[in-house]
């Protein structure tokens, strides 16, 4: 398969490269501008202005794809390099043209939402294909480490043995991450031996997905990234849980998360925000600046040092890359984060959003990544990144309730404070166990930097399709796996150990353990298959929502109570008496009581928890 027909797993990314721009600075202008069109404007040769990069749009009349349209308004028609649809198609490979034809036939000329969606996605995929094809024009590639690295990363699925070999020969994985970094616990050797098997799995899944697509009347051609996916169903859910083909991820996430609906309702907004936030300087942008290079320093697309190192060993034609002070990806990351902080002022910028945006940018363009962040923070994990991190407190409260309910053996360790007291159930919410400091980052970063990349991505596949219950299910799975790990059993089960030490051991173990979970299938299987007391997949979204509701209401009540006690016109002495008063205490405890009557509407999954309890008590009686 040649590079030309590939969507490119890292589509835009490698374009650093840019290829068209840097490596082949004398290629034709339409090529360059097309290359820059997607996924992100910054991917072009530095001397192309942002406006010319963004404004190329041969689908101007398509109102759905209005980001570019409105950019044209902003920048004025003068700066536009226009391509007629015909001209644009000329730059495509014949295969792409066919795909477009077939899509057209399928869609018909209706104006319903789906058709608009398809047109939108068509334009994305067209652009992407063109951009990729122009990145490394056939015959013009000189061999060099840098180039071959970038070229390899453009290689698509299904992978042939030789491509797998390419990845095996590289320091970097298929997403541009260093297989082994100073902070990772996984050795290159271990990665490679896992990947050898996993690549076969990926091939199989790819074939299964193609069958699924065809069964749903969606055509798939080799090397093409689909933009439409089958409607949600049990079958599709199962397929998603087994993993979306890496190359399809961006489109599939966007499709199932409702990205098109969001994008269509807010046409042109992203471009407008980019314009409005140019040169913005505030508290948020300061923190963003400091985090840009601390997002994925181990990824070739995010770290100019990695690039520079590679380009130094390559031919002189890469001097441009060397002189770049930051990678195009970093520039995209900056724009998305600044735009987000501006669009969602109640959140602004919260550390960890950088990891989420960074991961999204590996799979989709800026505008889509932006809207995915909005969807995530509005709908999936609301308030988790807000200024008071209220959502973190709430979700950790919910997580602790579920741990207590479903993994009592873990709760017997978690539920203690450093001072060794057993946290009564009614205190779960007033004083979250310290270990929630570890688990709160799981929720904020959605496992980016917590689990190995592929495992994280498999969780994301499920998350965008199934929603926030996924984070709880996976968290419980990881906790239980950690607890049952022989290494933890060895350190953690010693009865001579003080409570404090035990807590700390658990904290540290829980912090490091997820980094070893290299095999996504192990985690996903444990999460969903009811074997050995796992199977947290039966915790429903309703249950989570009810718990969230419960926890956040209790927290609000607690807050009110404290405030009114503090604001009452009392002397300090009276206030101290009031606050120390046992009645007041009891009241709080009633409010926070983890009594089933209060948890109205919460339907616990008795099945799992009774099994867990049985198992736990059995274990204890045999001890």
């Amino acid at each position, binding site marked *: 398969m040649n590079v030309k027909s590939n969507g490119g797993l890292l589509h835009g990314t490698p374009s650093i490269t840019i290829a068209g721009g840097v490596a082949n600075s004398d290629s034709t202008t339409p090529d360059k501008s097309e290359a820059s069109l997607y996924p992100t404007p910054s991917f072009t040769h530095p001397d192309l202005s942002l406006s010319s990069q963004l404004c190329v749009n041969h689908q101007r009349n398509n109102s759905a794809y209005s980001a570019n349209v409105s950019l044209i308004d902003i920048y004025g028609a003068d700066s536009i390099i226009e391509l007629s649809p015909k001209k644009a198609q000329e730059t495509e490979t014949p295969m792409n043209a066919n795909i477009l034809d077939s899509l057209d036939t399928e869609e018909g000329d209706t104006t319903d939402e789906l058709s608009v969606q398809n047109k939108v996605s068509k334009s994305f995929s067209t652009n992407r294909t063109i951009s990729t094809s122009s990145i490394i024009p056939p015959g013009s590639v000189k061999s060099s480490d840098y180039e071959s690295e970038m070229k390899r990363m453009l290689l698509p699925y299904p992978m042939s043995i030789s491509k797998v070999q390419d990845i095996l020969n590289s320091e970097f994985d298929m997403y541009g991450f260093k297989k082994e970094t100073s902070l990772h616990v996984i050795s290159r050797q271990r990665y490679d031996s896992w990947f050898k098997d996993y690549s076969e799995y990926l091939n199989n899944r790819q074939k299964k997905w193609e069958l699924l697509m065809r069964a749903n009347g969606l055509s798939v051609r080799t090397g093409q990234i689909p933009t439409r996916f089958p409607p949600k169903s049990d079958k599709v859910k199962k397929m998603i849980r087994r993993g979306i083909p890496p190359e399809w991820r961006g489109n599939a996430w966007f499709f199932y998360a409702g990205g098109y609906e969001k994008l269509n309702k807010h046409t042109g907004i992203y471009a407008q925000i980019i314009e409005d936030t140019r040169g913005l300087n505030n508290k948020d942008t300061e923190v963003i600046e400091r985090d840009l290079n601390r997002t994925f320093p181990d990824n070739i697309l995010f770290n100019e040092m990695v690039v520079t190192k590679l380009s130094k060993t390559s031919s002189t034609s890469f001097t441009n890359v060397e002189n770049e002070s930051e990678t195009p990806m970093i520039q995209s990351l900056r724009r998305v984060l600044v735009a987000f902080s501006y669009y969602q002022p109640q959140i602004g910028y919260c550390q960890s959003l950088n990891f989420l945006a960074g991961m999204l940018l590996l799979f989709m363009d800026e505008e889509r990544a932006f809207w995915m962040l909005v969807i995530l923070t509005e709908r999936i994990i609301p308030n988790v990144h807000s200024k008071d991190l209220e959502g973190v407190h709430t979700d950790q409260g919910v997580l602790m309730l579920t741990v207590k309910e479903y993994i009592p053996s873990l709760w017997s360790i978690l539920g203690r404070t450093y001072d060794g007291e057993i946290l009564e159930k009614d205190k779960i919410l007033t004083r979250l166990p310290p270990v929630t400091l570890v688990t709160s980052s799981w929720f904020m970063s959605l496992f980016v930097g917590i689990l190995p990349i592929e495992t994280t991505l498999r969780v994301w596949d499920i998350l965008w399709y199934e929603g926030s219950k996924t984070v709880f299910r996976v968290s419980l799975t990881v906790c239980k796996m950690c607890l049952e790990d022989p290494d933890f059993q060895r350190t953690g089960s010693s009865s001579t150990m003080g409570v404090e030490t035990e807590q700390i051991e658990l904290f540290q173990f829980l912090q490091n353990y997820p980094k070893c979970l290299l095999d996504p299938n192990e985690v996903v299987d444990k999460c969903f298959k009811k074997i050995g007391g796992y199977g947290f997949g039966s915790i429903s979204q309703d249950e989570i929502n009810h718990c969230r509701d419960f926890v956040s209401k209790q927290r609000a009540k607690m807050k009110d109570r404290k405030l009114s006690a503090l604001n009452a016109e009392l002397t300090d002495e009276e206030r101290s008496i009031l606050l*120390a008063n046992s009645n007041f205490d009891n009241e709080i405890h009633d409010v926070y009581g983890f009594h089933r009557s209060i948890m109205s509407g919460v339907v616990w999954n008795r099945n799992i928890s009774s099994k867990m309890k049985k198992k736990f008590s059995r274990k204890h009686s045999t001890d």
Partner: protein
Amino acid sequence: MSGKKKTLLKVIILGDSGVGKTSLMQRFVDDKFSQQYKATIGADFLRKDLTLDNNKQVTLQIWDTAGQERFQSLGVAFYRGADCCILCFDVTNEKSLNNLTSWKDEFLVQSNISNPQDFPFIIIGNKIDVDDSKKIPSLQKKLNNIVNQLAVNANGLTYPVFETSAKDAINVQAAFEVVAKMALQQEEINDANANDASDDYNDAINIHLESEQRGCC
């Protein structure tokens, strides 16, 4: 309290995001430095065993935190029981120096320390390896001002100041040895006062009262 607990010293590193908290901790504990640290989310901790001058064996438990302001609301859980607090700034970033006072206040509020005026703080200015031209202009003068300001409510204490480079391993070891000694002293005081610490549950409420009272003086 048990003899075992005496040797375990809890140290918290605070400071603006990007001043080098993680790097300092890594340099001290593992004697390594990487340009590739990621932003810290939540909190992280490492342990290191030390033998002090008097042959006293201690284990430092060093807590590294997220520098962004909003993460302080998560801090309650781990500020508690701290024996020493490192206030960290970046010698190239004046804001991070000026923010030390609010970091100190925030720590005292959240940790509910019983004797705030005696609590040991240490100040570390990191990144001294960088070019002088990039450093805060008249750093020493500004630093002295801040240190004096920090010590206003302290019982005649002066807080030790170290200028370090986690990158080039300058002064990091020395700073943490002082941290260990200060933490050990504090731990011994805590142990002596252990009987007084009866009421734990109203911490969250007491916090606000305390801060109000401080506002009055």
